[in-house]
């Protein structure tokens, strides 16, 4: 579904990504692990079109999307839920969902998309009129993911969805991600909380200093000594 092939990217002279290749198959949850500054967010931004790779290519559903603008990849069903939630604080939940909705769909389609989002995050239905700036971190994360879901993504890029959340809230969010995946959305999940991410992921890649240093199924990676030491704290 997603094929990243030999992508390199530099901010000026600082090389952030070197020959990064990974793939995500339909229906999978793929975790992208790595420490601060490894290049995880930069890689997602190269995929969704916020940045253009210096070299290499990105294929999405057999189409070359290298360097395509972010709103165009969004139109093709590749939706990026950015790190830090990035909501518009003055908007209500209602308006935030609206802005994530494709512009050319009927009212019925929109209602059913909302239905689906509210099934996943029931609390948002009660808070439709609330300013998102006044909500808690966990609720904001729900709003941010819902905004992404309103676009009916085929592939959802989730950048640190559990960052800054209390452990049990983070667990809830991860459970929800698994649920969204069960309902048919493919997911590329970036996380520093490796153990939790591996719990729900099918496969995972480890990114270090802009290179993929390890990859394999979640079960394999959990057994690997390097991962255990570096990321799992075991």
């Amino acid at each position, binding site marked *: 579904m997603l094929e990243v092939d030999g992508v390199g990217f530099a901010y000026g002279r600082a090389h952030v990504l070197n020959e990064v290749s990974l793939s995500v198959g339909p229906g999978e949850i793929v975790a992208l692990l790595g420490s601060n500054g490894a290049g995880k967010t930069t890689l997602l931004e190269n995929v969704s*079109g*916020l940045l253009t790779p210096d070299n290499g290519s990105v294929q999405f559903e057999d189409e070359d999307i290298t360097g395509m*603008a972010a*709103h165009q990849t969004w139109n093709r069903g590749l939706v990026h839920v950015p790190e830090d939630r*990035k909501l518009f604080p003055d908007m209500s939940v209602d308006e935030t969902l609206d802005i994530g909705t494709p512009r050319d769909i009927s009212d019925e389609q929109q209602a059913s998309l909302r239905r689906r989002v509210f099934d996943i995050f029931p609390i948002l239905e009660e808070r439709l*009129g609330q300013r998102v700036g006044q909500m808690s971190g966990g609720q904001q994360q729900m709003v941010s993911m819902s905004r992404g879901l309103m676009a009916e993504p085929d592939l959802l890029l989730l950048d640190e969805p559990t960052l800054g959340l209390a452990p049990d809230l983070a667990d809830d969010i991860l459970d929800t991600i698994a649920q969204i995946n069960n309902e048919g959305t493919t997911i590329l999940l970036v996380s520093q909380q490796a153990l939790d991410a591996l719990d729900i992921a099918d496969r995972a890649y480890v990114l270090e200093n802009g290179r993929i240093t390890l990859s394999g199924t979640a079960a394999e990676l959990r057994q690997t000594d390097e991962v255990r030491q570096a990321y799992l704290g075991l």
Partner: protein
Amino acid sequence: MIRERLHTSDRLAVVVVATLLSVPLLTQDQYYLSFFMLMVMYASLSIGWNILGGYAGYESFGHVAFLGVGGYTSVWLFVEFGLEPFLTAPIGALVAGFVALVVGYPALRLKGPYFALVTLIIALAVQVFVTNLPGLDASQGIFLSAPLDSPVRSQALLYLLMVGVLAVTIFVARCVERSKYGVGLYAIREDEEVASTQGINTTKLKVGAFVVSAALAGLAGGIYAWFLGFVTPSPMFDVQISILVVLIALLGGTQSWIGPFIGAVLLRVVDEILVLQFGGQAAQIMYGLVLVVVILYLPYGILPKLQQIARNRVPRRVRTLGTGGESG
């Protein structure tokens, strides 16, 4: 929250336009007509400017370019073809919109102060370009040779046309405010990158807003030129107009069309009083002071401040019960 706070302004628009339309019924005096003419013009310019500058946060300091293009187009079409302002002002709007389309694409890649500077320079470049067009001899200024007693030279009629421009401008601004484009522009102002990850074609939206905003200025320019009876670079491309338009919007508040309207009324009244009392130089100094005061004490403008005061007078019980609508 974004939309809610706008819902009261429809009836207000009708009241404003009706009041302004009635001015010539009360007085035909040249002085008052002139005063109201400039007030209405600045209000339209600023409300139009606000579509890009306020809603999307791209503050152009070259808005006068489009006023000038509209004005010159309007007058030139009369001199060459004898066309009247009902026709030439809309054509001027189209030409101004086209100019905005051409310069907007490159300029709107820049943000903040860079965009402000580039638009300032674009306005100067457009002036030089227009005044040096071969065969136009525009640097000398072009006079309208229409006889003074013809109906289209009637100051009252031209004033009414300018109120019409204001009505069109408010209507367009209202449409933008309510539409998904308005929300998109708001998203661009808050965080352009995030907006683009939500499928918003930011380039298209920004250029679109710039073109609409420029066309509205061109429309006003077409009428203003007829009101003056001539076009010369000095009033039609005066950089001070650009700055005033920005100042008016910032003074009033940029969230909706009401802010720039309040700003225009206030600044025009203050300016007129100052000029009458102390002369033009003092007025200039006051503008500077107003800008400083606005930035220091009213960073969001007068209107949000008024709304805040009004809200705080609502009894506490009502406030805590209300769910939405608290954000100004």
